[in-house]
């Protein structure tokens, strides 16, 4: 069962791009593992051992990065085997992670010390630190590569940096306790506010909040497909679907218990949601808005970050 997919992956990666099925790399914080899921086959392919309570994840064609919160370890894994190619221990509370492959940088948020670590993406050597607001969690890089954003939870704000110079551009007040955030394909930044059960829509250029959109209880993560935003509502076991033009809620989709990490397949056809309590992912058809498949994972899937190979930043 396992060998053919690994072979497939090796071949696909050797060819330079994963031409066929999307692969999910789901960090399981309670189980100290990572589930590798083949979305086309609807099956778990293998599990990697990732000690230290991994939550944060960032997947790129050349590498899978994980952040283990308890052991404070950042690892770079080989995509095909999970082998640890580099690792580093950071003094603080590493949690969120985003990869800027174009510039060879990996950003990791420090939950306890109001900063972002800037690491070299190959060796994981520390290059620089960026000062942000209290308890930074989610990180995102815009699709055009211009901006880096962090959700500073205890400061109720978002910090936006020039992703090239790493200069601070804006500190923006959003809702209460922002945790997860992501840039929409057209460039706006969507920020889930855990305390106010809404999403702040931010213009990264002007540094202003253009809209505040009510969603469900404890919004956690945001992903985009088919002209809509999909937001996981942790305390409601639902995903809110918001039209990107009208910013109105289209519907809420029932998923598993404690939905957290959310990402989109490369072609935008499916949304994948990690259900933390019940150890599954729900796969949603982006057009019909139905849950089309449920796949079991390791214990406590967080998948906090970009976790689909080919998924959007």
């Amino acid at each position, binding site marked *: 069962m396992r060998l053919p997919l690994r072979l497939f992956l090796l071949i696909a990666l050797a060819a330079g791009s994963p031409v066929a099925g999307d692969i999910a790399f789901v960090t399981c*914080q309670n189980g100290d593992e990572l589930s590798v899921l083949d979305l086309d086959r609807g099956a778990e392919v293998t599990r990697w051992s990732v000690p230290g*309570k991994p*939550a944060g994840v960032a997947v790129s064609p050349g590498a899978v990065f994980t952040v283990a919160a*308890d052991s404070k370890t950042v690892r770079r894994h080989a995509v095909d085997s999970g082998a640890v190619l580099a690792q580093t221990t950071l003094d603080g509370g590493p949690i969120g992670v985003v990869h800027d492959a174009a510039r060879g940088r990996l950003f990791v948020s420090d*939950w*306890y010390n109001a900063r972002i670590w800037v690491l070299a993406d190959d060796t994981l050597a520390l290059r620089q630190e960026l000062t942000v607001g209290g308890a930074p969690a989610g990180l995102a890089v815009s699709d055009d590569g211009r901006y880096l954003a962090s959700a500073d939870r205890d400061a109720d704000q978002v910090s936006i940096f020039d992703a090239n110079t790493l200069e601070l551009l804006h500190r923006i007040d959003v809702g209460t306790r922002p945790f997860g955030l992501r840039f929409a394909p057209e460039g706006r930044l969507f920020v889930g506010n855990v305390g106010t059960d809404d999403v702040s829509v931010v213009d990264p250029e002007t540094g202003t909040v253009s809209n505040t959109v009510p969603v469900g209880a404890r919004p956690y993560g945001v992903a985009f497909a088919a002209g809509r935003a999909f937001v996981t509502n942790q*305390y409601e076991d639902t995903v809110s679907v918001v039209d990107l033009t009208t910013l109105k809620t289209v519907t809420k989709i029932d998923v598993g218990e404690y939905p957290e990490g959310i990402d989109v397949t490369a072609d935008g056809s499916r949304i994948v949601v990690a259900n933390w*309590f019940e150890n599954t992912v729900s796969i949603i058809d982006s057009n019909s808005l139905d849950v089309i498949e449920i796949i079991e994972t390791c214990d*406590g899937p967080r998948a906090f970050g970009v976790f689909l190979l080919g998924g959007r930043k």
Partner: protein
Amino acid sequence: MKRRSFLITAAAATLPGMALAHGPSRQKVTLTAEVAASPADVWAAIGNFQDMSWHPAVFSSTGEGDNDIDATRVLTLGAEGGPTISEILYKYSTEKMSYSYRITDVLVEVLPVTNYSSHLTVKPRDDGGAQIEWRGAFYRGYPNNDPPENLNDAAAIAAVSAVYQAGLDALVERFGAAAS
């Protein structure tokens, strides 16, 4: 220094409804018990959010809102004047025989957790009788890095597991163990 930050933590925990800082890993506990009685009988005993007298640690319960969403209860533990836990109901289904609630206020000295939510569910067993499932999700009592032993993840899991086990044991005694 350590003591001071602990006191601040305890004080913050007394502000109801406040979204607290929390540790890096949410924990979960699921415990089940199998009893001989029918699901309906078990649900009749434990399905009222305003009556937790079935749990041996609960001395009394006062609350408002019956079994409606956002109903509240304050549990007094042990004896009169004992420590209290304040809770709020956020899901309730007679049909599914399940309710879900969150703790809005508890001292970490009483239960070393934060951001606690829980579900209590009664399900039919294939071979007759009922299964009672009690699940909780929570962060440890100490919100900052490098927690002391009494407020770390293991302490939180142990405390919640002990509460659930005591309640489930009492129900097995009351309704009889299911035939295995």
